[in-house]
């Protein structure tokens, strides 16, 4: 038996000593990450429960002395702003499956949101062609199923496409839905939209409805519950065979195929699950709004959600949550502040500031604000590979 020379074992090099406040901050986040990872499972469970408990108390954030009034939005009702955040977070989580896990660039994600919303509207509204007028809850499962079906319908013809080609086809898909809604005055009702949409069921003990018109808090909590469910489902999928297949497809589709990963099946899975979560966002959106028309589902919406995923850290659940929350919070927070130069509402400048912000974040953290561990390592590798300029 011949002995094989073993390659020298690479000793892990000591991390560079932190320099300056940024280095110290990095060291802190690194050790926090490790501390979190080393906790026993119940410790992490308690931690998560505490985090979501605190999130559920967000509507009362304005009552914290001193910093509270700085946090809440001034120009718009804080509770409804929080609710908007929840459905953006849901969408970011869903798109994260398609873009972050499976690595397929989807620029038409709003299409699924629209399908979920329109399905519920068609089943429940009195303006609908079908005159069914179901309750919100009865229409919800149909919203899920139909958006999932559309996810597969979109996924099927695009299986062979990559990169830019896939991006433009998904974009076209969303535009087709929007234009169809715009140009079918009797079916999807275009600008006139659907009115008198029912709210989710339930009433307090004194008989007042939980999901009323005035108070957005219950909707925020509903959205939060949906977020928790989606996180559990997506996290478990990511850690299963499905998630590993997505990872393989994202890194190298040909190699994955050769190693026996059924790429067609898992790519369709990614589309279907992304579509389902998008539909869920639409369903909750309709439950709150009471009225909707085609002008909600513009292309900029998809782009905003994609920006949320990449900004937060593609392929990572906490990143998607942070990104989704930021893209609604920042513009809303700017409302009601007068800018010092032109003395108009700073809200006018929201997209300029937002655009600058995403450029700055991408320059300094191309991996996103909270990247997944694996992604961060990959990027370090890439940065080392870069040719001298």
């Amino acid at each position, binding site marked *: 038996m011949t002995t094989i020379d073993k390659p020298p074992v690479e000793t892990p090099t000591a991390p560079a000593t932190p320099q300056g406040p940024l280095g110290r901050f990095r060291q802190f986040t690194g050790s926090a990450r490790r501390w979190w990872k080393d906790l026993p499972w119940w410790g992490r469970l308690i931690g998560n429960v505490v985090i979501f408990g605190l999130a559920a108390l967000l509507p009362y954030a304005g009552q914290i002395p001193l910093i509270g009034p700085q946090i809440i939005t001034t120009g718009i009702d804080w509770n409804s702003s929080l609710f908007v955040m929840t459905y953006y977070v849901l969408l970011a989580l869903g798109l994260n499956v398609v873009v972050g896990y499976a690595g397929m660039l989807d620029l038409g994600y709003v299409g699924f949101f629209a399908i979920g919303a329109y399905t519920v509207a068609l089943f429940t509204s009195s303006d609908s062609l079908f005159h069914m007028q179901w309750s919100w809850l009865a229409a919800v499962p149909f919203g899920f199923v139909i958006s999932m079906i559309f996810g597969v319908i979109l996924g099927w013809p695009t299986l*062979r496409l990559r990169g*830019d080609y896939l991006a433009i086809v998904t974009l076209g898909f969303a535009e*087709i839905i929007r234009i169809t809604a715009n140009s079918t005055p009797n079916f999807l009702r275009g600008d006139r939209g659907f009115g008198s949409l029912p709210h989710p069921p339930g009433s307090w003990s004194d008989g007042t409805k939980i999901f009323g018109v005035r108070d957005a808090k219950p909707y925020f909590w509903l959205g939060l519950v949906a977020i928790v469910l989606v996180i559990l489902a997506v996290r478990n999928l990511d850690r299963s065979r499905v998630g590993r297949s997505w990872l393989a497809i994202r890194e190298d589709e040909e190699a994955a195929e050769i190693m026996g990963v059924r790429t067609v099946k898992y790519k369709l899975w990614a589309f279907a699950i992304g579509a389902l979560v998008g539909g869920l966002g639409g369903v909750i959106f309709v439950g709150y709004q009471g009225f909707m028309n085609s002008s909600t589902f513009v292309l900029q919406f998809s782009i905003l959600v994609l920006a949320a995923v990449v900004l937060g850290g593609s392929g990572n659940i906490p990143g998607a949550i942070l990104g989704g929350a930021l893209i609604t919070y920042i513009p809303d927070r700017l409302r009601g502040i007068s800018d010092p130069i032109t003395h108009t509402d700073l809200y006018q400048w929201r997209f300029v500031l937002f655009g600058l912000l995403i450029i700055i974040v*991408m320059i300094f953290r*191309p991996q996103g604000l909270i990247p997944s561990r694996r992604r961060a390592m990959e990027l370090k590798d890439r940065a080392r*590979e870069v040719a001298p300029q």
Partner: protein
Amino acid sequence: MVGTFAAIGVWGVLGYNNNSATPGFWSAVGLILIGLVVAVVASGTTALIVELVAYRPLRRRNAPPLAFLITAIGASLVISETFGVFTHRNQVGAPRLVPPKDLLVFGNTHIRILDVLIIGLALVMMFGLDRFVNQTRMGRGIRAVAQSPDNAALMGVNKNRVISLVFLIGGLMAGVAAVMYALKVGNARYDSGFTLGIEAFTAAVLGGIGNLRGALLGGLTLGLAENYGGELFGTQWQTVVAFILLVLVLMFRPTGILGEALGRARA
């Protein structure tokens, strides 16, 4: 968009706005030329600034392709929204410099001076660009960088200069297109570039990315399909027809009609 506003702006400074009468032949030619120069300089400069501010730092860190897309979106938001705030999100009218006269008439088809001018300019630009990319030394550099940036750098191509050059050319061509747009459509809005950008992207994808002749063919096919489909099903379905055609083409040819001449599909 920057180009359109620049051209309309300089015409405004020279005393021509959407209410003034059509000027005489020579002054119209002069105005169009001035508009062209200003628009080209404005949009070329903008493109260079975007490259320097938003792309070069990312390239230095070898960021993933998605990061580039996001900064591109950020840059386009900043530019168009800044114009949006300053124009109060209203339309800005352009002066009518070319008289709306027919040059040729075939049956019911009226071909106007402006149409001939636009098609002629477009052809000149396309021919010039094709020549530039395929025949000159700089064009060879561009193709080399497109195929493999690192290998091109090893062979002595200045990567950053080539990429800046590409952005500059893109900006210049957009500037020319902006003047034609202002003349033909007659107004500009802060978001008028957005749909055009999407259409341009669709055309490039339809023909095959990185393939100039493909882009030309893609644009032509797209325009014909849109107008023909619009005639058949009603104008509101134009874009739907275009996108369905795109899906059908890509189902059978996943890299566009003519395929990719340069580079690879970036995942």
